[in-house]
């Protein structure tokens, strides 16, 4: 759908990425290039390493072998590089992880003020603008515990966007939500996609994948098994494991 948005600049590069948890080889030779403006949907059975892979991108998890380059910055031992990468990469979690002791607005301005050294006034104005975009400006002074799951996840998206990231990572953003709230979150994500954000989404919302994804990636056993544009991926899956997985997912 939005294929034309992708430019040639590489935002995320994973080369021969390998990771172990002790003896357990969780990521095996992952290779992935994401261009600016591309939207990637990652799916696969539970435990296949989807979360681990995207968490390596902003160094929430350490990888043992291979290279990661984000927005031209190599992710290495240099703490400065790690900090720089985290400023470019926003992340949305399955369980929102909002700060319960801070209001919605404070959740949104904390990092801009203390990490980006933005004036509070400016940070608040920007936060209100983004809360407007996720359609909850009226909740700004409430605490996360007073919001529904769908609202909380939209705040979490706004909070990430407040850092003006170049890349957004989503780790199953709707799987902890009640069915009636999934749509409001997906709508926000679709809007973000049409505005040209580079996105990597771990999700099993196949409707979302068909609407916005430039590519769908299927992972199993710590490997990328199949990678294709959505139409081909859903209608003509090449691998047996992909076919099995899709048949299980699409049954519902």
């Amino acid at each position, binding site marked *: 759908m939005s294929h034309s948005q992708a430019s040639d600049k590489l935002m995320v590069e994973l080369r021969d990425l390998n990771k172990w948890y002790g003896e357990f080889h969780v990521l095996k030779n992952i290779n992935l290039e994401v261009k600016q403006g591309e939207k990637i949907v990652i799916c696969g059975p539970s435990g296949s390493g989807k979360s681990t892979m995207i968490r390596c991108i902003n160094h*929430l998890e350490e990888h043992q072998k291979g290279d990661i380059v984000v927005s031209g910055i190599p992710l290495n031992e240099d703490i400065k590089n790690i900090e720089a990468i985290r400023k470019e990469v926003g992340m949305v979690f399955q*369980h929102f*992880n909002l700060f319960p*002791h801070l209001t919605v607005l404070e959740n949104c301005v904390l990092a801009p003020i203390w990490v980006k050294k933005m*004036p509070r006034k400016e940070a608040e104005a920007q936060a209100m603008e983004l809360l407007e975009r996720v359609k909850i400006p009226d909740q700004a002074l409430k605490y996360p515990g007073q919001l529904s799951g769908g609202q909380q996840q939209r705040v979490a998206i706004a909070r990430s966007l407040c850092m003006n990231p170049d890349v957004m990572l989503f780790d199953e953003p709707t799987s902890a939500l009640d069915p009636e709230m999934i749509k409001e979150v997906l709508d926000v994500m679709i809007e973000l996609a049409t505005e040209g954000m580079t996105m990597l989404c771990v999700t099993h919302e196949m409707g979302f994948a068909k609407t916005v994804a430039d590519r769908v990636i299927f992972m199993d056993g710590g490997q990328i098994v199949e990678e294709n544009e959505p139409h081909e991926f859903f209608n003509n899956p090449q691998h047996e494991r992909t076919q099995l997985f899709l048949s299980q997912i699409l049954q519902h």
Partner: protein
Amino acid sequence: MSSDISNSGHNPEGGPAKPKAPPQNKPKFWNDPKKRSLLFQVLLLSALGFVFYSIIDNTLTNLEQRGITTGFDFLTEEAGFGIAMSLVPYTEASSYGMTFIVGLMNTILIALMGIFAATILGFLLGVARLSDNWLISKASTIYIETFRNIPLLLQIFFWYYAVLRTLPHPRQSMEFFGTFLNNRGFIVPAPVAEDGFGLVLFGFFVALIGSWLISRWSKKRQELTGQQFPVFWVSLGLIVGIPLVLFMLSGMPLGLDHPELKGFNFKGGITVIPELIALWFALSIYTAAFIAETVRAGILAVSHGQTEAATALGMSKAKTLRFIVIPQALRVVIPPLTSQYLNLTKNSSLATAIGYPDLVNVFAGTTLNQTGQAIEVIAMTMAVYLTLSLLTSTFMNWYNSRIQLTER
């Protein structure tokens, strides 16, 4: 349901049926659960009342036989005994009332000193135990497990008899920069204010107010421009700098009363008695181990997702700790911290064991022995601990409710 059953007993239409159900009118009053529990409470209360009455009556009779009159008149009588350490002027000619004041102040002093040191040490140890650094975390674990599990009294004895009493005599004192350490305590020069020292104090207060204004200004400026100002360092500079400059300009109007060895002991200066040092070390080190555990539990209670979210937003470890982890951990830590403070205050009465002149040692000890006014003295002493505890919990509850409010 039960009303149906009991009604059936009174059923007027039941007729004179032969196989009459056993009479179910009101149960005997000792079978009625409500009355029964009331009865037990009354019995218990009267028993308690009787016990207290007999104790008091017995004591009063005993006192009377020994010719001791009850009442608080003894407080104005001359005490006639010396006290090793006093924060207010006290001599043997002072009254028993003064022994109460001296003991009370010594108790408050050791409690405040202990709470201050134990809190800092405890927080550091609690955070250290969770450190990624193997050595730091193991060292902290060993500290906590050791000091938590050795009886406090033993620790007090250790610091007092094994460490401080084995120091050299005054004549062979260890000297560091004009201070002396020996088995009579730690002797430091006493500051003596001379003309013009008021100016220095004035400068100090001006600096305090200045720092407060600066912190407000910098917050405003941050809101407008985003620039951050090193408030802490500038304030520190002011608070130290201004009084220091004034001090120099006014010709250093502060004399020092240097301790001097006269005969077998030191004259002049301030002597921190070894009993205070030993008790302070023992109470702080012991309580810090418990505080460390509550701090650790508090930090662990903050979910891992919180740290991850902060990290993903680019916040450093220190900022994550300051803005995310500690504020949430505090809500869990405050209630058990309060009870550690209360424990420390109550444990300070172990002072008696090494002769630190706290309230229990001076007032409930010597004064009671000399006057025999057991009831009054014990009642006053108990009232003090009760009041101190209530004050502490009230303050901590207030603080707790303040930080809880930010949640919702």
